């Protein structure tokens, strides 16, 4: 065990209080003591306190977003995403149209559903984090129809505020499906069965973060955007009990009280937007000629038309970069409209 772990958590907690204003004299004394004993903390603190007026919380939030975008784009090439999306669309279409073919066909789908949790758990057990479902595999199949859904809600128990809406719908779906008469479930396993269980597996990833106390970083593939998006509305609720835990917001675990405001998001999600910036943020000629590079930071609110309003520059580069950054940000639609400030960093590269 790292001997710094506890002290670091404490330090980050105090830093968070310093940023959100809950900081008082007693905190200062403790922070002082913590920085004196370690050069890493000391220098980090000197850095933050050198710029007391900056909005470091927003900056940290932004960095986290960029890190997560980087991680997910690294792992899955764009083409794979596209084919995954196409496959999902097919599956959804199949499921949507299937019940219309008749009641009997509908009932057939109960069989795979019962198997589905098995798939999930196998998936989890095979995942690089075996700790996720140690006990789950033991209680596995042969369960009566209601059991799987019960086990599901049990899994998602520890962190209710991080449950995602899709997940709820999905669990409800499952429950509904299970309640249907299962006596005909011995019918031949057709294509829909394969399709259904495949869908279940695809939907499974959101269950994983719940198991891991909702670490958004550990979302798999396509649900990442949805997950981070869905986690946002939950954030304000968690801002209240700031004092209770030391390692909350900064310790990289998901509850990021003050670091994630319920601010607007770009149409198509942040990942999409970052991708767009990477492709389109080109240095204007004037900036290139003047050997300028770096990023423009701007902050804005979202008007009722979904376009940025009250654009302010938190960091300018000049030579046309600022105008270009504003143009890029304006070329996206933002939702929901509101006064919560959105901070965007537009990195220009040579």
């Amino acid at each position, binding site marked *: 065990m*790292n001997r*710094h*772990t506890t002290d*670091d958590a404490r330090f*980050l907690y105090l*830093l968070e209080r*310093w940023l*959100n*204003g*809950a900081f*008082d004299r*007693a905190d*200062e*004394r403790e922070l*002082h003591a913590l920085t004196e004993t370690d*050069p*890493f*903390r000391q*220098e*980090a603190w*000197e*850095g*933050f*306190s*050198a*710029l*007391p*007026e*900056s*909005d*470091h919380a927003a900056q*940290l939030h932004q*960095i*986290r977003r*960029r*890190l*997560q975008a*980087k*991680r997910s784009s*690294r*792992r899955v090439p764009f083409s794979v995403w596209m084919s995954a999306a196409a496959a999902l669309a097919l599956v959804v279409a199949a499921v949507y149209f299937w019940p219309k073919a008749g009641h009997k066909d509908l009932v057939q789908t109960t069989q795979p559903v019962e198997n589905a949790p098995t798939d999930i758990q196998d998936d989890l057990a095979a995942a*690089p*984090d075996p*700790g*996720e479902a*140690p006990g789950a595999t033991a209680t596995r199949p042969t369960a009566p129809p209601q059991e799987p859904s019960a086990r599901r809600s049990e899994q998602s128990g520890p962190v209710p505020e991080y449950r995602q809406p899709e997940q709820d719908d999905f669990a409800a779906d499952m429950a509904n499906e299970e309640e249907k008469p299962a006596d005909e479930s011995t019918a031949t396993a057709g294509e829909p069965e394969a399709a259904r269980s495949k869908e279940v597996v695809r939907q499974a990833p959101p269950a994983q973060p719940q198991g*891991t106390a909702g*670490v958004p*970083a*550990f979302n798999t593939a396509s649900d990442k955007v949805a997950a981070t998006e869905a986690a946002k509305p939950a954030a304000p609720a968690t801002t209240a009990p700031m004092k209770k835990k030391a390692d909350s917001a900064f*310790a*990289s*675990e998901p509850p990021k009280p003050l670091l994630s405001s319920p601010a607007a998001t770009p149409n198509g999600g942040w990942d999409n937007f970052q991708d767009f910036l990477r492709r389109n943020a080109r240095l204007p000629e004037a900036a290139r000629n003047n050997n300028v590079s*770096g*990023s*423009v*930071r701007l902050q804005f609110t979202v008007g009722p038309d979904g376009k940025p309003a009250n654009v302010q520059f*938190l*960091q300018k580069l000049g030579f046309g970069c600022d105008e270009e950054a504003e143009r890029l940000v304006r070329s996206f639609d933002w939702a929901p409209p509101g006064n919560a400030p959105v901070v965007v*960093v537009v990195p220009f590269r040579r």
Partner: protein
Amino acid sequence: MLQFFRSDRPSQWTDEDLLARYRSDGDVRHLGLLYERYMPMVYGVCLKILRDPGKSEDAVMSIYEELTRKAKEHQVESFRGWLYVLARNYCLMEWRKNQRRPTDYRAPEDMVHYDAVEAAFEVELPAAEDKSLGKCLEQLPPNQRTSVQMFYLEEKSYKEIAGLLAEEIGKVRSYIQNGRRNLKICLEKTGTRYKS
């Protein structure tokens, strides 16, 4: 199997566990989780050296890039210490690159040092007029003086002070910091030294 008992979720694994996993399977989620533990501190170190939020943000990203490469090549004993050195060196290099352009750097001596001021408040609570602390307090600009008094003597939080002064929290952070620095300079001038 041992993993099962020792820790049931990646967020509770030790640095070394996560690093070992990244080294064995190359899964950036492990390294990412590990990096995010220290990210605010890395950002702070970059802020100290570069004195610029935007540049520091870019540096934090670049350090992560460097980390993904170097974590595989080097045998690391203590991840934390290693990351600190890596981050520091990267930012110093970045800073040297920009040296030719004038920036509004303040010398590191301006850094906030608590000892003198904190000790003085410990001794002279509440500040009497004839003591040097009282005199120095009087010399501060009004906003700094009120903020410092409220923070040290009335033990109010930044938020409360911000509410009372109708100022932003960032401003209050700044008042208290500058007020404290000015106080320290003033106290040293009057020859008062406090030891706690």
